[in-house]
């Protein structure tokens, strides 16, 4: 399992209702279903991922996140997940509002653009960073809204979002003391557990 998912799953209560926005092939929901008897629903637009979800026995709905989540009732899920999808949304801020309307808690993970590698890449090459985690060229990338840990902290503050836990991990997905001390510089993936303030 993807290491950010490994961390996320610790925050999910057994038998709770989980909505996974951009659920990919359903790995996490499948895991949560079998280990925690979670009642999960995933939203996805990629045909292959949807097929894999069905094969994994995961409930999946073909729905484009950019068209909103108005079809979901307020407070209808305990947790709403947004794993590595934030940066690909047209209106990430609005979607976060929606997450916290629909769920009691939200979990957001994203690649930290403030990581030293991105900074170094941009500083030395003067070009948009390309790496294992961000393999696309600037013109064909689905990731249209990159942000840094500091940016997201600021957004949470503006929106009066309460951050329950903020975990930042490096490429080995380890949160060493150094990464904890300089999250926006050393962290590669940011993982936020949030709720309404």
């Amino acid at each position, binding site marked *: 399992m993807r290491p950010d998912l490994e961390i996320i799953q610790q925050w999910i209560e057994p038998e709770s*209702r989980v909505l996974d926005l951009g659920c990919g092939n359903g790995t996490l929901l499948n895991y949560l279903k079998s280990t925690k008897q979670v*009642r999960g*629903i995933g939203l996805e637009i990629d*045909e292959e991922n*949807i*097929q894999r*979800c*069905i*094969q994994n*026995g995961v*409930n*999946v*709905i*073909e*729905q484009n996140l950019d068209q909103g989540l108005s*079809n*979901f*009732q307020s407070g*209808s899920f305990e947790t709403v997940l947004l794993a590595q999808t934030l940066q690909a949304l047209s209106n990430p801020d609005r979607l976060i509002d929606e997450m916290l309307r629909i769920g009691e808690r939200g979990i957001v993970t994203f690649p930290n653009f403030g990581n030293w590698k991105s900074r170094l890449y941009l500083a030395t090459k003067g070009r948009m960073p390309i790496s294992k985690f961000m393999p696309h060229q600037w013109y064909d990338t689905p990731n249209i809204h990159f942000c840094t840990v500091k940016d997201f902290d600021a957004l949470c503050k503006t929106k009066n979002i309460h951050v329950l836990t903020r975990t930042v991990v490096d490429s080995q997905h380890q949160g060493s003391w150094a990464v904890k001390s300089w999250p926006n510089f050393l962290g590669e993936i940011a993982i936020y557990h949030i709720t309404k303030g």
Partner: protein
Amino acid sequence: MSITLPEDSVGIVEPQQFHFDEPLSLRSGKVLPAYDIVFETYGELNTKKSNAILICHALSGDHHAAGYHNGDTKKPGWWDSCIGAGKAIDTNLFFVVCMNNLGGCGGSTGPASKDPETGKYFGPDFPVLTVRDWVKSQVMLMDRLEIPKWAAVVGGSLGGMQALRWAISYPERMAHAICIAAAPKLSAQNIAFNEVARQSITSDPDFHQGYYLEHGTYPKQGLTLARMVGHITYLSDSAMRAKFGKTVSDFETEKTNFGRDLRSGKLSFGFDVDFQVESYLHYQGERFSENFDANTYLLMTKALDYFDPSVDFEGDLSKAFLNSDCKFMLVSFTTDWRFPPERSRELVNDLLKAGKEVTYLEVEADQGHDAFLLPIPRYISAFRSYLCRVHEEICQDAP
């Protein structure tokens, strides 16, 4: 002479028939005192009786969903593309049941049957049935077959509506509802097309107020017209262009294909058939009229028009699903303008509102409403995978 049937076919099948003496109270207030149900089954019922799937047919369907009838090895059942060994509804895993709905003309009691009390054809005196009544009769068949619970109730179009009604009325007797190319209820446009079809039939001089069988005739012209109109609503504009635009002339490339192939190569400057599409519709309509009962057509379209499970729940369909503890799979097709994806999404949203477990796919397909009957790869893979999950659940439940 022996004929080889495809390997994944369920082979030669024989319809079965049960007689029921228990009166069936109908939504209209009328009672059907006794009736026959004709049905077919494919695959084997396991010892736990937990692997049964009910297939519900649409407007013009019947109990012959898969395989071949003796003497007719050319044309398989209406959903043969999906039912068979290794197909989406895998008869190696499931015991599949499909019945001809009451009021139909495939052998179950309907307007073309004789009323045992009078010895005359029921004709227009046969009561108007609703989806709810059909589901009730499907429960009777299920009990007679000693099936405690369906692994899944499956249907497309009007069949999908039956699957929904099952989930509302008998959720404890099914594990999954699979509802393809359906809608929560018909729109004015849907009803309007049905009314044109009904008017075509009832205004045919051979209709005789529905007593045409007593007169030794049938409203061929009316039924043909009804089917022609219906058939147009099953196809999409793009499907028709492709189907009737096989001749690519200097003026028409594949990109600019309007589907205007001529029947005889030139215009007639008369009012007869000029284009292939016209001739096709005539052929389809006529062939249908020879095999279908006009009163049944009227009844089926009314059942469609009347379908609206939300009426018992202050118009809020999500409330209808509150007790439905089965799981749901819904599929729609992008070019279906009879029951477009928006209509399936309405259903999905009501199911989500009711807190149900739902899987929903919007399949890119050119074939319009008819797509649900066709082997479209993405649809079939998803359908098969979903049913594999259903089967895994059965195996897990077994002690």
